[in-house]
């Protein structure tokens, strides 16, 4: 019995191809059984995320099974045979190694991301509950999860935030701990502010105030976030109660000056205040950062921190690959 993997991902296929093969998370178990029937294999697991769809199989004849799935899948999904060029095929040890890399986040668009671990686990669980797995895939997947955990715990592959939004959220947590007691104000209802504010809300930020030159747009974004809209001329009055200010207006000059913050200090009882300036040109006068309780981060600093984290992760790849090789050598998995 051979272990096989047929898949496409963000590197091999554009989104219009990937979306044709995407399977919703509620249908992964049924898809695994369908896969077994299509490939005339013994066992199957289907992994489907926004960046990849992969089919893992345990079958008697690898070459035969690959041909069957490619042809029959193309027929089923009604795409022409040229789609085969987007697929990668891996057999035996290569397939096991690939699964370990996927689980460890080494094959992800954002190197080292952790979400993929849960997604693969969910895919395996669905296949297991549908009776689509057996001795080969059960062992391979369970061992891959073990290897993934080892890679993540013994290296720094998942350390640090690699996007500007996540760096900002991590900093907010470093300043305020749990964000459930924190209030956030957004100056300028741009896309970056929205993404960053959403990250803060997803980590528990208590309330959001949106101030924008266009009040309608402020109301729209406030409704989307479950917050309140503030007239742009009134943002100073809200400053006394918020903990985090995210600024991303299109103004050609600074809109938050030292004097604005100085005025609010007394009312704030000198509590820490975190300014995230993601606008270019900058919205917040750098002199604001000189105020004792203010922590000011602009887009360049946040981007630099994200870049440093990405570089640190890149430097970990070799070590991660070594762990995977060593573990696979030790495991002697079936089908490899």
């Amino acid at each position, binding site marked *: 019995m051979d272990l096989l993997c047929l898949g496409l991902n963000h590197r091999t296929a554009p989104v219009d191809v990937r979306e044709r093969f995407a399977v919703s998370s509620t249908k992964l178990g049924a898809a695994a059984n369908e896969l077994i029937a299509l490939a005339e294999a013994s066992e199957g697991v289907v992994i489907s995320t926004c960046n990849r769809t992969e089919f893992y199989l345990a079958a008697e004849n690898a070459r035969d099974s690959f041909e069957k799935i490619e042809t029959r899948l193309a027929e089923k999904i009604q795409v022409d045979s040229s789609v085969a060029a987007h697929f990668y095929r891996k057999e035996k040890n290569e397939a096991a190694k690939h699964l370990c890399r996927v689980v460890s986040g080494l094959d992800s668009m954002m190197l080292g991301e952790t979400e993929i671990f849960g997604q693969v686990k969910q895919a395996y669980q669905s296949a297991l509950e549908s009776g689509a797995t057996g001795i080969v895939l059960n062992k391979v997947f369970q061992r891959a999860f073990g290897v993934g955990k080892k890679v993540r715990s013994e290296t720094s592959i998942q350390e640090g935030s690699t996007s500007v939004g996540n760096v900002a959220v991590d900093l907010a947590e470093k300043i305020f701990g749990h964000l459930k007691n924190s209030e956030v104000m957004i100056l300028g209802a741009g896309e970056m502010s929205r993404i960053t504010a959403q990250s803060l809300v997803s980590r528990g930020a208590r309330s959001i105030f949106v101030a924008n030159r266009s009040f309608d747009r402020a109301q729209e974004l406030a409704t989307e976030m479950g917050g309140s809209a503030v007239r742009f001329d009134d943002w100073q009055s809200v400053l006394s109660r918020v903990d985090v200010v995210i600024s991303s207006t299109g103004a050609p000059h600074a809109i938050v000056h030292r004097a604005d913050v100085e005025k609010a200090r007394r009312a704030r009882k000198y*509590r820490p205040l975190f300014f995230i300036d993601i606008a270019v040109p900058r919205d917040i006068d750098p002199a604001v950062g000189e105020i*004792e309780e203010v922590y000011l981060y602009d887009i360049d600093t946040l981007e630099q921190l994200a870049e440093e984290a990405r570089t640190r992760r890149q430097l970990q790849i070799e070590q991660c690959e070594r762990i995977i090789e060593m573990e696979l050598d030790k495991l002697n998995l079936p089908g490899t």
Partner: protein
Amino acid sequence: MGMDRWFLIAATLLAAVGGAWGMISVHQGKRSHWTVIWMIGVFLCQLGFLAVRGQMRAACPLMDRGEILSFLAWSLTLFYLLVGPAYRISLLGVFTAPVVVLFQAVALIPGTLVVNPPKQAGGNAWHETHSAMSVLAYGALALAAVAGVMFLVLDRQLKEHHLKSGLFRNLPPVRELLISLERLLWLGGILLTIGIMAGFLMPRTEAAWGHLIAAIAVWAGYALLLGVKQVRGLTGRRLSLSAVVLFVLSLVVFAFV
């Protein structure tokens, strides 16, 4: 060498190893999970020391400088064990351990701790309450100063955008540090108030007045700090700096008075 010294040496060594272990972990960017365990060991040895000295004295062992320093180190450890895990600021142990080592190492210098101390006859309950509460208060205030130092380190790193060190990753959030610092100041302030009130009720010699005035001055300093924080508010940096300066000043005052 008596059993009391052995206990104190063991406590000092455990604190030194715990502190060094914690610092190495932090430097490597790992959480120092074992610090709490080491500090529990330190606490038990300190209890052993105080029990032996208490039996020798037949009173609260706060009669010589060595005992006062050891009692202070014990109360510092006690408050760390009470406060550290409760507010998720276990790294406080890594910062506390060196202070404990310093106090106990000074106590171990020959001449600081009286060898074979005599039994105390005719002890006074107010006197013992005054001594015990005052030293306990200093434990809380010392820990507040330690939390203050931690805040100052974190504040500087955040202000200057130096966020790569293992220490930065392991330091607790700014807000939690400030909450712990303020609570420790309140706890220390309340204990100090009880200690001073007991000081007024205990029999006093002429020489004790200087000590009592110094204690009141220290109390007034902390009361002013807490009052300003409560009414007007204070930046984290000023609160931390004040907690550190007041603690160091009060130690210096009592060393001379």
